Structure formats: C-alpha cells, structure tokens
C-alpha cells in the first residue's frame, strides 16, 4: 500500500512539474528557452514514474515492508520540525529550542520528566552559547538571549 501511495505521489508530482515546464518558454534546439531542460526532465520523469506506478499496482499490495509511518516517534519528530520555524519566529531562539528539545526527549522516553527538562535546558543554553556567542550566528533574540550575550561580552 505504501509503495502505491508513494508511486502515485511521484506520478502526480511529475504531471504538475510537466505542466509548469511547458508553461515556461521551451524555445528551439538552437535557441533553448528557460523551459527546455525542465521539459526534458519532466517528460523523462513522467514516463519513468508512470511505468513504476503501473508496476507497483500490478503487484499484490498486502506485503507492506518497512516501518509504520504513523509511529509516535517519527510523527513527533516530523511535527517538531514543522513547528520549530513558527516557534522560532514568535518565541525567539532559547524558548523555542527548549520546547522542541524537551518534547523530543519526552517523546523518545529519556529517563524522567525532570531529567529531560534539565537536559533540554542545559543543551539549549549551550547551543546558544556555541552558535550565537562563539560562531556569531544571528538568531531571533529576546531578553534572555541579550542577557546571555551580555554576560559573554568581554569587559
């Protein structure tokens, strides 16, 4: 079943990409336009993915190999990844990173809640010190971030 879903997904992508490529100027062989290379790729992808989807649907669907996509750990990691940019934008670096790290530690059942809390806290501060303080990476900052940077600044 998973193979069928993925092969169909790729086929749909190939169709959408083909439509986009044709909409660009394809040009001639002597004067290739911006859409010529994408159109060639789109045509190849469409042909290969259609053949692959056809073969996948020919096979019996019951032997679904691999991992379950709905298991808690990968689903949680996926959610954390999607929400991190939103949290980073609204809550600044320390708070957003701490939340994501704490959630991941709990999700993967790292010791107790208190240990996870402390590990997330220390790791977040350390990562801020390394990336923002030492490597000079510009991260969204609030009061707490400014405070740590002020402590780190040479007098």
């Amino acid at each position, binding site marked *: 079943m*998973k*193979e069928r879903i*993925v092969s169909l997904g*790729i086929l749909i*992508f190939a169709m959408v*990409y083909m439509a*986009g*490529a044709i909409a*660009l*100027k394809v040009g*001639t*062989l*002597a*004067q*290739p336009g*911006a859409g*010529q*290379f*994408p159109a060639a*790729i789109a045509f*190849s*992808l469409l042909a*290969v*993915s259609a*053949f*692959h989807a056809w*073969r996948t649907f020919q096979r019996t669907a019951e032997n679904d*190999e*691999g*991992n379950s*996509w709905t*298991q808690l*750990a*990968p689903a949680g*990691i*996926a959610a*954390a*990844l999607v929400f*991190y*940019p939103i949290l*980073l934008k609204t809550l600044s670096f320390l708070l957003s*990173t701490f939340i*994501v*790290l704490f959630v*991941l*530690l709990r999700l*993967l*059942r*790292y*010791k107790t809640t208190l240990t996870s809390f402390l*590990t*997330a806290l220390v*790791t977040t501060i350390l*990562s801020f010190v390394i*990336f923002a303080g030492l*490597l*000079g*990476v*510009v*991260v969204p900052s609030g009061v707490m971030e400014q405070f740590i940077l002020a402590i780190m600044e040479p007098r």
Partner: protein
Amino acid sequence: MEVLHQLMMGFQVAATPINLLWALIGAFVGTIVGVLPGIGPLGSMAILLSFTLKMEATTAMIFFAGIYYGAMYGGSTTSILLNIPGEAASVVTCIDGYKMAQKGRAGAALTISAVGSFVAGTLSIIGLMFAASILADAALKFGPPEFFAIGAIGLLFLVRLSGGSLIKNVIMLLLGLALSTIGTDRLHGSARFTFGISELGQGVEFLPVAMGLFGIAEVMLTAVEKGEVGEMIRVRMRDLLPTLVEWKRSIAPIFRGSILGFFIGLLPGPSPVISTFVSYMTEKKVSKHPEEFGEGAIEGVAGPEAANNAAVGGAYVPLLALGVPFTPAMAVVVGALMLHGITPGPMMMTEKPQLFWGVIASMYIGNVMLLVLNLPLVQLFALITKVPKPILLPLITLMCLVGVYSVNSSYVDLYVLALFGILGFILRDLGYSPAPLVLALVIGPMMETALRESLMINQGAIAPMIFRPIAGTIYLAAAIALIIPPVVHAIRGRKKPLAMKG
C-alpha cells in the same frame, strides 16, 4: 619536481597551528561519527557545515578531510569489537574482524585495520596528487559539451552503482534534476517554479535538502529501530601488537586494497562501500587459505579497510580537478567551498594553490593524527556506541535545525529541511536511495548550462556535441564500462548450464 615544490607549499599552509588544530578536531569528530551507527560522514559534514562559516576556506576543507578520513577509521572499531558497522563501508570488516575478536585477536585486527588505513590513505593521497594535477590540466581543454558529458555519465554511473532498485534510483535522479531547475534561470534571468517566494529565486539550497534526507531522515529511521548494543569485547594495550605471521599475511592485501580502493574511488556512487566488497572478494580469490574467510582471516580485515580509505582519496580527484562531485559527501565539500565564495574546478589548482595543496598536505597530517589517535583511544571510541538513543537523536535534530538556520538565517530553509526530512524518511523506508537526488541537485545547474551552451554553439545540432574528440572518448569509455559487465555476466550465465549439461 614542480609537484613536490607545490606539496611543500601545501605543508606550510597545513602546518599552521590553527589548521593542525582543526585537522585534529576533524579527525576526532570523524572517528566518533564513524563509530556511531547511522550518522555517516555525509550527515556529520552537512551538520557541521555551519561551523565552517567563520573559518578560512582552507581550514574548512582541512576540517572536512579529517572528518571523512576519521569516519573511515572509526567505522572499523565497532565492526571488530561489537559486530556493528559504524557506517556502510565497514560492513565487510564485521565478517572477519568480529570473528578475530571472538578468538582473542581483536587487538591485532584493530592494529592491522589502522595501519592498513594509514598506508592506503597515504598511497591514495599520492595518487590524488598526480591524478588531480594531470586531470585538471586536461580539463582546461574542456568546453561545455565535455562538462555535460562528465555530468551525464557521472549521474548514469551513480544510478547503476548506488545499489537497490534501478528504477527507484532513476526516479530519485530525475527528482534531483527537477529540483535543480527551481530558481532564476541562469541564461535568461526568468523565474522558474518559485511560486512568488523570493528565497526560492536563488534555487533550492543544497544544505537543507542533504541534511533533511540524510540527517533528519536517519534520526527518524533510527527512532523506530529496535535493538540494543551488545556486549563489547575488551582490548588491552599489549594485545594490540599483531604476530609476525599476521603482519606478513596483511602486507599484500593492504597494497592491493589501496590500489583497488583508489581506482574505485574515482567512480561516482558509494565508492568506499563498493571498494570494500571488491577487495574482500579479491582477497578471498587470491588467498592460499580461502576456507578461513568468514572465520577470522586477517586478509579479510586488512584489504577492505585499506580499500575504503583509499577510495576517499580517489573521490577527491574529480572534485579537485573538475569541480564535479561524484559522491554526496563531496557535494557537501562543494557546498562548503561555495559558502566561502570558491567555485571548484580545473582553475582551482592555479588560482587557489594554497587551498588545493593545503588540503592535500593536510590529508597526510590527518592520517598520521588518526593513527596516533585511534589505537590508544580505541576502547574510549567504542564506548560511544553506548550513548542512549533518546539523548542522541534529539541532539542530532537540534544540530540539524540550528545548523541549517545558521547559514542563511532563513525560515524557508527550515521548512525545506522539515519537508525533506519527512520525505527522506518515507522514501528511504521504501528503499529509495537519497544519493542520486542530492548529487543531481548539485550537478544539475552545471549540466543545464553546459547543455544549453553546447546547443547554442552547435546551432541545435546534437551530433557535434557527442562526436568531439574528448567528449566522444568520455561517452565511448562510459559505454564500454556500462555494457561490458552485463555482457560478460550474460555469457558466463549461458556457459554454466552448458558446462553442467556436459
């Protein structure tokens, strides 16, 4: 003489305290990465890319070379002591390495592995030095048709050699090429597939894609894996010395593995992995004791371990000479160079000699460091496998998130990371290899520009693009290399039933 003179200059660059320090850190980190199952050299190089932002380009390259070599060294430790390959290139070492350890010869296996890696690393660097300079000189004569030929043939080989399903590899390659067309068209300046998102005008960044497909996807796959690390075989310092017989039996396999590894390293695809299998099969064939293979034959450790290290040197040749990465790890190296405003290619040797020769010299130094580092600290490195998954995986995720954001301070890059992390998990779970996609994303723009320029130069005629002396030779050599093995296989397949009948 010229090469030696340049190499001496390289040593002057590499031997500055800061470069030596980063070579040591790279070797150390690489060894840890090699020891840890799951996180390969590519993932770690991608994660650590942001650390190189403040470094000089030469220092960054030295750091990465240390990681790559270190990973090859480190992978063998857990293969021998725990029967767990730290990364794919060490799978073969498990077969005889772990058997040797069970027989009380773990120390000898580790020493032979380290010395073999050192010898192979050094020999492959010598090969790289000469091959890269010859190839770079030749590449100055290359025009757009030749660069298109190199890119197209490289990707074709990658698809054939990546293992797994051929059709899935082709799909991943085409998806990578499709992704590479997103952004502003280089020749006409028009926007393609950007959907009004200004950040996409620059194209899809390589780093979040690579970190998503290799780093995050690996974290998600590891999170659902079950299984605990088994008991580790302990090694005392005095056990590290192999016997005279073990030394004698290892010398020839080390040299054979070095040569095989270097030449296989020149090919696109997972060359370090392929080289270990080829070396193992070769050693078994030429051995006077083939029955010992699988039961703890020292040749089965010496040859493959030498081969995977030599392949690293080989993999640097197309990158340094042509500017074309043939392995995903080399694509990260290109990413690091681009971050420092350097476009790799045949001119790099003349325009940036300090960088070119500094990296080569640092590989010698890195190899010595790894030899000194690995044997005394072998037990400590093996202990790293005991770090529990629930702490390791969130830390890697955090490194990926912060690493990707730190390069461009872009939220779009974080969404790209998330998208490719999830896609990578789904696709890798079903046996789609991410390597063709990542390499096609990197090589795609070069190929498109070369193809369009070639077509314009030849006024739309395709034959003159193919039948040029250099491009034609490249296509012919590739056709022979791709056609001969299946033909030989088919002939052998026919002969066997006939022989059985007779």
